[in-house]
């Protein structure tokens, strides 16, 4: 296995170079066009297109007797286009929805393809084996001539994407607006669809009709996790696809009978899984962390608010867990645990077995109480809710109110009800209790 790895990495073998370059091109173009296909919600159409290409390959061979890649790809392209048109025809003129139409066309064309392939194989017309590689792909069968075809197609695709990037972006985001600007959205769409067709054709020989759609979809979906702008997404997706192609080829070179195409797809899938879990902001871990932060902020707010409300009522600034628990309607043990956590974070401190707010905790607590009461006033006086329904929404929203909203609320409450916002909260009273009670 080590021998194989070294042989691969030295790139001494021309065949290795061909296969590596081919896989890299397939992955990169798939990733690039995939970004547009996925965002345009055309990924399934790409799958249907690939499956529909199979009978085209068989018919091209039957018609010409040639197994040259360009000939077979022309057949594949024509059949793929017929398949896509069939889907469009079905969705436009019947009541069948797009997903069913795609399913029907995909399976019918694929079925015909299999029948034709079987027929060719059994007809015994000499060297008939080899067409079935289009089913699951056979990267090792790529030769120099094939590479020329694939490289040219890739060059066309990439140049077209560079040229029409702006048009594609506007088409996918807002086709109606693109038309209103004087561009023909139909033409831009047809162009994009054409490029997707070419992309599928590039990968047909090495990855096969069954799996090629994965090279269109997976890198793009993985890239979306890492990017908030289309340009970044296209670049990341292209790199993911290219790397998946190269790594897949390397892995399959390590031992005989590891198929390249499927391994490429698996590597791309690995990128997807890692992205879905680890990506900043959109990844599962980041979302879980955000969720936890929100939850713990809410807990903190409850604690601090109860503390400030109690100090307001009882005119002192130190409370045992049991008093806070009564105010919150919680178990004392829960208050105790939360108190210890908040003490570590510097919001509260222990004082003779009871809890006292630090400067930081007090400031935030007063802000929360103020938000809560202002919001209650607002809801109540705007008659949005009856008095006994006010508290719960206020509880929920107080964690979200920003200082700007609070300032605005203060204005409204002061203006409409003639209420001095300071009195609403009675901060100064509370503050003085603190000065007297807690801080000496």
């Amino acid at each position, binding site marked *: 296995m080590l021998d194989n790895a070294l042989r691969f990495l030295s790139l001494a073998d021309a065949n290795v170079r061909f296969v590596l370059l081919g896989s890299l091109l397939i992955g990169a173009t798939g990733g690039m066009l995939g970004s547009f296909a996925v*965002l345009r919600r055309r990924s399934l159409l790409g799958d249907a297109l690939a499956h529909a290409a199979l009978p085209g390959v068989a018919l091209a061979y039957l018609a010409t007797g040639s197994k040259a890649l360009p000939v077979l790809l022309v057949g594949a392209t024509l059949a793929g286009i017929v398949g896509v048109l069939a889907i469009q025809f079905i969705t436009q003129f019947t009541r069948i929805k797009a997903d069913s139409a795609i399913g029907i066309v995909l399976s019918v064309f694929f079925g015909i393809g299999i029948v034709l392939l079987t027929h060719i194989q059994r007809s015994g017309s000499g060297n008939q084996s080899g067409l079935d590689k289009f089913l699951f792909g056979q990267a090792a069968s790529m030769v120099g001539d094939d590479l020329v075809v694939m490289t040219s197609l890739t060059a066309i695709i990439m140049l077209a994407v560079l040229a029409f990037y*702006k048009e594609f*972006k506007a088409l996918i*985001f*807002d086709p*109606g607006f693109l038309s*209103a*600007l004087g561009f023909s959205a139909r033409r831009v769409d047809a162009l994009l669809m054409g490029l997707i067709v070419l992309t599928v054709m590039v990968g047909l020989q090495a990855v096969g009709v069954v799996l090629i759609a994965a090279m269109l979809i997976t890198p793009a979906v993985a890239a979306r996790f890492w990017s908030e702008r289309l340009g970044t997404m296209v670049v990341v997706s292209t790199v993911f696809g290219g790397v998946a192609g190269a790594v897949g080829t390397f892995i399959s070179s390590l031992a005989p009978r590891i198929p390249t195409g499927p391994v490429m797809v698996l590597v791309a899938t690995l990128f997807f899984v890692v992205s879905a879990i680890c990506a900043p902001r959109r990844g599962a871990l980041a979302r879980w962390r955000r969720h936890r932060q929100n939850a713990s902020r809410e807990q903190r707010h409850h604690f601090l608010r109860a503390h400030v409300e109690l100090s307001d009522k009882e005119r002192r600034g130190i409370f045992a867990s049991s008093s806070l628990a009564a105010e919150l309607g919680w178990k004392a043990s829960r208050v105790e645990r939360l108190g210890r956590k908040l003490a570590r974070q510097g919001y509260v401190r222990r004082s003779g077995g009871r809890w006292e707010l630090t400067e930081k905790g007090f400031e935030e607590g007063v802000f929360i109480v103020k938000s809560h009461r202002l919001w209650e006033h607002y809801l109540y006086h705007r008659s949005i809710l009856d008095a006994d329904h006010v508290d719960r929404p206020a509880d929920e929203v107080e964690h979200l109110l920003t200082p700007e909203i609070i300032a605005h609320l203060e204005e409204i409450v002061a203006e409409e009800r003639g209420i001095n916002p300071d009195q609403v909260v009675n901060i100064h009273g509370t503050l003085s209790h603190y000065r007297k009670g807690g801080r000496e």
Partner: protein
Amino acid sequence: MSDSVRPQGEVAPIQIHDMTIAYHKKPVLWDVDLDVPEGVLVGIIGPNGAGKSTMIKAVMDLIPKASGWVKIYDRPYDQMRSAIGYVPQRESVDWDFPVNALDVVLMGRYGHVGWVRRPSGEDRRLAAEALDKVGMSEYAHRQISQLSGGQQQRVFLARALAQDARIYMMDEPFAGVDAATERAIIDILIELRSQGKTILVVHHDLQTVTEYFDWVIMLNMRVVAAGPTREVFTDENLQKTYGGRLTVLSQAAQAMADHRRGH
């Protein structure tokens, strides 16, 4: 149409002649005959399914006409596309698309940029300026899904401003926005009007019609009435437009009551 609604001496920015729109051969908007004068703020009102969006989309050739024609400043629409700025309904796009606010506004310049070429520095400057005009400068690099509904609507308005057009078509720009955004949008519309631009706005809130619009087009699958608001926004026309739909009717009655109280 009465003489008072004809543009005086000038060529009308929008002339619609005998326009009928059909979906699957079923007409949804019949025989629209209309000249909209220059420099007015026009509200298009009518119940759901009255053909309000359909009308502006048909004017902009976004949906096919069954019959009739539209002229923009007396020329075919095809030659005048760049004269029209467009604000589609906010729900018509996927806001999770990976672009930031400035990217979206820059799309308003694409018509001037043309096929294949890239937007220039000047285009970027104009886009930033449009974003500033709607008070969204500080959100320029924010991904659009992280904007509130009102902010998204402002971005759409900025994109239309970046088109630098003479006529603006807006499909429910006030739908689902906060009061501050509504105020900001109407201020911009008024400013556009003062620059001699003509603005057509699909509108839902009958209460604000008299306050916002100098002209009103009342639709219910046909033009029930069109003209200066004070002349055509009458009890009788509201009945004709919304007749038979109780909830809307009561809304209309309320609007009329407010209208009379205010004048």
